[in-house]
């Protein structure tokens, strides 16, 4: 294997691993902040215990999200030096802004939240977790504006043998970036909601602390319902944007080979890349694909054959990733709707089958999120910046195969180990349930002097 392929595998592995932790951070920070605010307003210690319990799981997960994020920022220079030289003038800015505006805020106030229970007032303490939540979400915005630029480059000119920024506002208001942001953010919210519902379901099945976990479940179900409905909306707009700006990705997502007007939406497709056709197309809804993509049932959808084979993304993996992700997206709406209804009727304890289902559903949003990124990144190939720079021209020239083999082996080993430890700890603390001893927090409130 060459350094290019190895570097791609390494980026995929480290990014996928990073994205195991990020979505839970995005959503759970908000859920925990909400719980702590309820405590501050109502003085009901149940909410404090909730913030503490879910907060602990949040922290175990947060640590790995942060450290694996450093890798991402270093890797552009280490493995993708030609990319960094070529687009750094415009691509570096959102990354640097992310660190300055968001990451500092997040990392500084997480310290106050963890260690500050007795040091600051209840209100200030709740504000600190809100700041963490806002900062993680803001952090995602800048990263996804950067990724949005790779999908649909805007606000630059080609000058001095590179892409130079000429319009910062264009980068900032890139619709592709904002759709990416809403889509990713909402998927993180859904994931966190399913995480809280799943863990709560586990305890409810064990008849452990029913009041605590029914309340947690109810909060998560409503949050998850709102997020999953909005996620479908964001996803639909996102797909339209893909159809508009990335015809090869869209054709691969839907496995469309021949350009056609008034394209049907086939519920069942099996792509056959070798023969440039689908070996099965069934249950078609006439004109529906054209309607979805362009709000016009007769609109033309460009087929993959329109483009030379070397400019097409891998079709089968893009197609199946997209289909499974989208199907899961609809499933999340149904499941959180049922969860909202049952928990609203206070009937969770009698719905043991549903609880079991929700427990086993914990991994589903993780799978959907990973598949979504596969669609986004595989579907963009062979481009690293769509239409502007090929992935094969972006890799570092000075990095040797043996160096990447060593680093890839190192990452796989280290990340594998960390994942094992993290899952062990998350399981341990999730099973343990909430801590009733609040004496360490409640003994003092207000400031202490030296």
């Amino acid at each position, binding site marked *: 294997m060459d350094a290019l392929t190895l570097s791609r595998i390494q980026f995929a592995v480290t990014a996928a691993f990073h994205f195991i932790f990020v979505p839970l951070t995005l959503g759970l920070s908000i859920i925990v902040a909400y719980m702590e605010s309820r405590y501050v307003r109502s003085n009901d210690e149940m909410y404090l215990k909730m913030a503490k319990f879910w907060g602990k799981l949040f922290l*175990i997960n947060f*640590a790995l999200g*942060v*450290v694996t994020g*450093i*890798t991402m*920022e270093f890797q552009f*220079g*280490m493995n993708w*030096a*030609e*990319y*960094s*030289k070529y*687009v*750094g*003038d*415009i691509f*570096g*800015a959102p*990354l*640097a*802004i992310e*660190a*300055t*505006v968001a*990451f*500092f805020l997040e*990392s*500084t106030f*997480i*310290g*106050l939240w*963890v*260690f*500050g229970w007795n*040091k600051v007032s209840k209100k200030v303490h709740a504000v600190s977790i809100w700041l963490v939540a806002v900062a993680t979400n803001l952090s995602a915005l800048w990263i996804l504006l950067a990724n949005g630029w790779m999908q649909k480059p805007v606000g630059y000119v080609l000058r001095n043998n*590179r892409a*130079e*920024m*000429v319009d*910062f506002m264009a980068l900032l208001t890139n619709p592709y970036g904002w759709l990416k942001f809403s889509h990713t953010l909402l998927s993180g919210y859904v994931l966190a909601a399913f995480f809280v519902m799943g863990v709560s379901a586990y305890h409810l099945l064990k008849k452990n602390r029913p009041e605590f976990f029914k309340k947690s479940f109810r909060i998560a179900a409503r949050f998850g319902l709102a997020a999953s409905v909005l996620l479908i909306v964001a996803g639909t707009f996102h797909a339209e944007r893909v159809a508009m700006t990335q015809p090869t990705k869209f054709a691969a997502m839907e496995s469309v080979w021949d350009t056609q007007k008034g394209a049907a939406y086939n519920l069942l497709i099996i792509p056959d890349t070798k023969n440039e056709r689908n070996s099965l197309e069934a249950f078609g809804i006439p004109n529906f694909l054209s309607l979805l993509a362009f709000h016009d049932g007769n609109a033309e959808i460009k087929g993959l054959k329109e483009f030379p084979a070397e400019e097409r993304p891998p079709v089968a993996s893009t197609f199946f990733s997209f289909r499974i992700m989208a199907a899961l997206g609809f499933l999340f709406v149904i499941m959180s709707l049922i969860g909202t209804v049952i928990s609203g009727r206070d009937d969770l304890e009698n719905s043991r089958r549903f609880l079991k289902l929700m427990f086993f559903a914990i991994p589903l949003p993780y799978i959907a999120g990973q598949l979504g990124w596969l669609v986004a990144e595989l579907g963009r190939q062979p481009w690293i910046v769509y239409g502007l720079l090929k992935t094969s021209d972006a890799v*570092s*020239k*000075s*990095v040797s195969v043996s*160096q990447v083999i*060593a*680093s890839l082996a*190192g990452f796989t080993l*280290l990340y594998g180990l*960390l994942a094992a*430890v993290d899952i062990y*700890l998350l399981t*341990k*603390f999730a099973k343990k349930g909430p801590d009733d*001893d609040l004496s*360490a927090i409640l003994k003092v409130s207000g400031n*202490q002097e*030296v």
Partner: protein
Amino acid sequence: MEFQIIWFILWGVLWAVYFMLDGFDLGAGILQSFLGKNEGEKRTIIRTFGPFWDGNEVWLLTAGGATFAAFPTTYALMFSYLYTALLLILFSLILRGVALEFRNKVESQGWRKGWDVAIFIGSFLPALLFGVAFGNIFQGIPMDANGYHGTLFTLLNPYGILTGVLFVLLFTVHGSLWLAVKTNGELGRRASSVAGKSWYVLLVVAVLFLIHTAFATDLYGNYIQNPVWFAVPAVAVTALLGIKLFALKTRYLTAFYSSCLTILTVTFTGVIGLYPNLIPSSIDKDYSLTIFNSSSSPYTLKIMTIVAVIFVPVVIAYQIWIYRIFRHKLTVDEVVNDKESY
């Protein structure tokens, strides 16, 4: 002033502040297993920088991000040429961050011992390797039209290693002073004793470094041209002596501030000597990466300047506020009885 020069200064500031801040928690991390005689003391040492290390490390990310945004060519070549060294720093910092968070999550001696080893490696290796990397940047790295002519072992030359040792000692003194400020009793006394003793070693290595710099690098060129800049290394030397002076008077907080100033000015001694290079080439000066041939466009630099001018002061303000909230000394009893900390 040209934007490139503004960003060169900011680049130096970001690295200097990073070394000053993460320096004390890396130093305390190096010392944790040796200074802490029992579990309570080991935990107390970690607890002194628990609320801060995360925020401190972001200065590194910002330094990296700023290099990317302001000097993309330097970012690309520096990170790909120093691939293996950076990888080792990365692995160390990942391991360390996780170790700090997870160490106290399981009640088991073996578990904690394992993470303590990770904390030591994760603190020592970055300190050493940042020094090695900067030593090599100061003397230039072998690069020309055909790229980089070297390996990880090229970096491990005498001057690179000397700078690495200098960084380890700077951080060790810095970290032990921090512990002398933040703890009391037996632990505090031990920390101040380590600070006092390691200072002598630091002094010797610092003198060797200043001498070797004259032979191994072109850093003094800028100083000879503009002797007024000698003020910066002069402050560094004074601050270094100040550490001892204040430590002898048991004014450890002032000694710690003096150590902060030492790290800031040592970094700037190097940065001023580098100008206008970011990374000189040791084999062909035409291929040195300067702030002019490797920078972003003036437009990008202007946008980034606006962002930095607005947000960096805000960051500094809230970080100072957090330091003030957690400014009190810690006792081992208090840490052991606190379930909330790690």
